[in-house]
């Protein structure tokens, strides 16, 4: 961009590019606040993928059969890959991967609160796929349109893989919902525990979401938290009730006027408690990440030593 322009002229040109549907790419001019918001969002998103491996990883050794085990291993591998796509997208904005990892390991970084809840039974693996990944896909499908090229591309790649995560979970939940009395009870117990935390994944109500306006103005987001949450509720209520599962909400009702399913109030005190570090598993998740990092230290040292070796002698 022409360096003789004033900041206002640069900003006007930047916003015109976004209005034309162009992607902003690394190297292009962008406002400092755009960069700051993207680093905040993308790094939190990357951390969520990495920490998200933990609740599901806990069940790999206890999968009930080989097929379910292969599926779960693949899914957890994908989450690790998604974290890598996103760390790289954030790095293109000028933060290093190491800074982000340090923030995560030191407990300074935020990640999705949903992963601070425990996985207590096997049906939780299905419910995470259908509900938690379903909620994530709503958000990610929107972010695939984001104005920042690297974030958008990472999201397109992630959405394609998340569809598998979503469907394997949905398949499992439907199967158990139509299964033995014990399976039905197990999957209903799981729905009861995950429903409200899943609705919290979309973030605070629009009235309490200070970043939304600027994110929408600059084409990072195209829908608000409440809009995405309502879309999700409408789809889930219809599908879950079709397989005779119930939702833990006595106030849930259909509103003819808007065509929406209306839930009772979300417990935002619980949401903020978990965000601020006092959820059921916050300490356990952080400890697991730190332990994994420590246990990998010798591997990283070995790889560095191998890379620094003298040229191999050709036989």
């Amino acid at each position: 961009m022409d360096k003789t322009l004033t900041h206002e002229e640069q900003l006007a040109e930047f916003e015109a590019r976004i209005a034309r549907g162009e992607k902003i790419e690394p190297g292009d001019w962008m406002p400092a606040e755009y960069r700051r918001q993207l680093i905040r969002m993308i790094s939190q998103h990357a951390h969520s993928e990495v920490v998200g491996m933990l609740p599901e990883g806990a069940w790999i050794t206890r999968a009930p059969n080989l097929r379910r085990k292969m599926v779960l291993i693949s899914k957890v591998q994908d989450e690790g890959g998604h974290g890598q796509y996103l760390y790289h997208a954030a790095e293109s904005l000028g933060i290093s991967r190491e800074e982000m990892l340090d923030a995560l390991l030191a407990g300074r970084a935020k990640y999705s609160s949903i992963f601070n809840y425990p996985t207590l039974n096997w049906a939780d693996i299905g419910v995470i796929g259908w509900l938690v990944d379903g909620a994530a896909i709503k958000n990610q499908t929107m972010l695939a349109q984001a104005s920042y090229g690297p974030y958008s591309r990472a999201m397109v790649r992630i959405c394609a893989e998340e569809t598998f995560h979503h469907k394997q979970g949905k398949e499992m939940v439907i199967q158990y919902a139509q299964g033995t009395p014990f399976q039905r009870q197990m999957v209903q117990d799981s729905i009861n525990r995950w429903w409200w935390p899943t609705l919290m994944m979309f973030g605070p109500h629009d009235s309490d979401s200070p970043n939304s306006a600027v994110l929408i103005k600059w084409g990072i987001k195209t829908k608000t938290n409440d809009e995405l949450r309502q879309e999700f509720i409408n789809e889930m209520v219809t599908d879950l009730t079709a397989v005779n599962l119930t939702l833990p909400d006595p106030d849930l009702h259909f509103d003819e006027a808007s065509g929406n399913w209306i839930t009772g109030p979300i417990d935002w005190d619980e949401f903020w408690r978990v965000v601020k570090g006092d959820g059921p598993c916050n300490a356990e998740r952080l400890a697991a990440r730190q332990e994994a990092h420590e246990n990998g230290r010798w591997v990283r040292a070995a790889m560095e030593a191998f890379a620094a070796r003298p040229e191999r002698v050709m036989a």
Partner: protein
Amino acid sequence: MNEIGRRDTQWPLYEVFMQEKAERPFQSVGAVHAADAEMAILNARTVFVRRPACHTLWVVPHSAILMRTSEELADDEEDDADTGEPQRYQIFQKTSQRRAMVYVGHVGEITAVSPQHALRQAIDTFGSSEDVFVWWVVPNAAITSTDDDDIDSLFAPAYDKIYRQPSAYRTFTAIRKAKHSSNQ
């Protein structure tokens, strides 16, 4: 030095290019960190090729690539470093603003005495810069590639893992049947 990271997780950044089938153009899919190019190939395979299809992967140190957006070119103040030995460069472009999971795609090869020289020739050879949003100039000497002998071990196993595909799950039918029977 940081107490926690101890500065051992950064490593050089390698850009990853994937060719889905023989004769198809290479496309930029993202990047990985690795201590050397050999490990970058392995990381790239794990991060970007958990599913079909891949025929060949290239990794190139990020620092070896000349990258210019059209916005940067409009404000061009490139130093002319046209005094080196002639080298071969692979030229990549981004020509669309559509939703995509790949970035720049391969368009051809240029022999030039510097990356800047290669870029100027590429702009003349491969279309006007108005139609191109991003240019990458990749020196051949910086490319590490898989070869055909790697296909069986690195890429072929993904074809057997059909459970990684959404099409392996018949959830649409299951929900439709459930809705149908609950309406009876």
